[in-house]
């Protein structure tokens, strides 16, 4: 395993290079040559095999094996097959896709072209969130350059393979990042996630076989094609030989560091770096010389790690061992010791109440109920009983208890359950101090009108 001390950025290679976003710069760094070689030398199935045996896991949040997902496409399908590239990036704390698209759009495009070739997709849509106008311009310029260079369009370099890439603009809704919500939105509808199965690989966009992959996943595919499997597997945390279900955490990862650190930013490190190493080595420490109270390991849906859990490796398996939902998007948000965990949870609940698509009752009601309770607690009308009620709501919504269609509800529930478990004393103290006469109340109390939600 490569240590982060000696590791040289690959995905972020273009950062700081003047005109790093141009096709000339990308080519001068070795870009597109791997694609051109691969179109001549490898059949699509061999490219699938390459990505599968690299062990690459999706960077969009779920960590599913990329090559394996591609093998779920029907064999010998007459087409069309679609590739949807997920650039909706809306998980609070996450901004690595933005940096990849703005600083090195051709790396992303090469990954897309290789992935489309492997999956035999002839159209790729990049679903880009509305809030990224710069990324839009950078990608569109890169796409135009790629067409001009014959890397896109009909019969690319005489290989018989044709591909068009189109940008599709979102409209500020988090749920469009969920893969089937994205597909519905692309089709022109409200972004209500679909019940799975059927999975998109069988029936996706426009009812055709579809692959949905994240922007960073695409960049990794480009680097695997350029540098090979051995290189990729020399970085990160190998599969646990005693656990046949652990596929390992290979390759470089873009960690987004924000919140209470001196130097927020997007940093590339081998999978498995710890939050403490990130904060100290890259972030120059917790800001103002303070202490971290808690750290989000990978976007707000993942819950919190406490200060004494900061040496947990941030690979796909690490955060789960300390009660977090997972690695998520590897967006590390530092919360210093002046922050009330009640305020953190209120912020989280408000986000999910705002972003629930409203399709499943447990999610729609659970997210807004938990927000109303947090509003009431912060207004000095909390009851100790609310903590059990909140936990109960958390336990009853999500795909994991089986009550909802998509994972947004799990992401909403996790911070509730996890922060109340880890910081129960702080919640209790807060409620007792702010509601000295009513904290033992067990009868229902009316909610406050919410004025801050929308």
């Amino acid at each position, binding site marked *: 395993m490569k240590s982060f001390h000696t590791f040289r950025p690959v995905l972020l290679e273009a950062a700081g290079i003047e005109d790093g976003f141009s096709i000339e710069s990308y080519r001068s760094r070795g870009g597109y040559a791997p694609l051109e070689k691969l179109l001549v030398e490898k059949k699509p199935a061999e490219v699938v095999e390459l990505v599968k045996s690299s062990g690459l896991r999706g960077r969009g949040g779920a960590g599913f094996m990329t090559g394996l997902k591609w093998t779920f496409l029907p064999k010998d399908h007459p087409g*069309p097959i679609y590739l949807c590239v997920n650039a909706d*990036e*809306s*998980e*609070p*704390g*996450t*901004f690595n*896709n*933005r940096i990849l698209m703005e600083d090195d759009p051709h790396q992303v495009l090469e990954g897309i072209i290789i992935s489309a070739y492997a999956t035999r997709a002839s*159209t790729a849509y990049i679903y880009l*969130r*509305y*809030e*990224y*106008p*710069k990324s839009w311009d950078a990608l569109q310029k890169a796409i135009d350059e790629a067409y001009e260079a014959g890397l896109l369009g009909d019969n690319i370099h005489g290989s018989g393979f044709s591909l*068009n890439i*189109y940008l*599709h*603009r*979102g*409209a*500020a*809704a*988090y749920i469009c990042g969920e893969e089937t919500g994205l597909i519905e*939105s*692309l*089709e*022109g*509808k*409200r*972004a209500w996630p679909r019940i799975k199965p059927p999975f998109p690989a069988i029936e996706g966009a*426009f009812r055709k076989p579809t692959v949905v992959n994240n922007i960073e996943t695409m960049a990794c595919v480009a680097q695997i094609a350029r540098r090979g499997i051995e290189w990729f597997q020399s970085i990160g945390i190998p599969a646990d030989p005693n656990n046949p279900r652990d596929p390992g955490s290979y390759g470089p990862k873009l960690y*987004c*560091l*924000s*919140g*209470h650190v001196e130097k*927020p*930013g*997007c940093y590339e490190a081998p999978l498995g770096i710890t939050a403490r190493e990130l904060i100290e080595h890259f972030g120059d420490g917790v800001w103002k010389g303070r202490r971290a109270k808690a750290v*989000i390991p990978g976007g*707000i849906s993942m819950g919190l790690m406490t200060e004494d859990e900061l040496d947990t490796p941030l690979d796909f398996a690490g955060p789960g061992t300390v009660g977090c939902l997972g690695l998520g998007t590897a*967006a590390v*948000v530092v*919360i*210093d010791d002046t*922050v009330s965990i009640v*305020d*953190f949870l209120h*912020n*989280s609940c*408000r*986000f999910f109440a*705002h*972003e629930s*698509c409203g399709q499943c009752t447990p999610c729609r009601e659970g997210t807004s109920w938990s927000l109303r309770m947090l509003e009431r607690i912060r207004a000095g009308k909390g009851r100790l009983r609310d903590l059990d009620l909140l936990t109960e709501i958390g336990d009853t919504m999500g795909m994991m208890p089986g009550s909802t269609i998509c994972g947004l509800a799990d992401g909403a529930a996790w911070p509730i359950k996890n922060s109340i478990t880890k910081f129960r004393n702080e919640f209790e103290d807060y409620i007792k101090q702010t509601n000295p006469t009513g904290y033992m109340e067990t009868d229902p109390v009316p909610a406050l009108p919410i004025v*801050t939600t*929308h």
Partner: protein
Amino acid sequence: MIANPRILTDGMVARIESLASRYPTKQALTLPALHIVHDELRHVPLEAVVEIANLLDLAPAEVQDTLTFYQFFYQEKPHGKVRAFVCRSISCALRGGEQVLDHLCKKAGINPGETTSDGTITIEAAECLGACDFAPCMLAGSDLHKDLTHEKADAFLESVRRQNG
């Protein structure tokens, strides 16, 4: 083609139709069409929804259903000449994003989600803008305002007033 379009201009229709070959269905043009109209008019009135539906062979209710799902689109009246999204999600909130939002709204004399009476600016609370490395931040038009302070917010309002007053 639409009979006597009243809201959609020829230019808008041409732009929508130029995207048709990208998608296997007409319905997929719904979001692009809404954006094209919204970009120019700063809202999509119901008449425009009907016209888009006619253009795309859809029921007006289908287009309206999509429009209303995305809170992004204004319908009854246009948003201000400048639309500012101030992030209130976790990384920005930790660095004073909510205070910046309050400050900005107070200075402009409106609540979050409202437009000033002269129509120059709409200020909205937004969820994570994907720029947490510059928290607290704001997106106004296509400009990202980074590492906001109350002073920077004041200067921003000033320049909006100067340019649109």
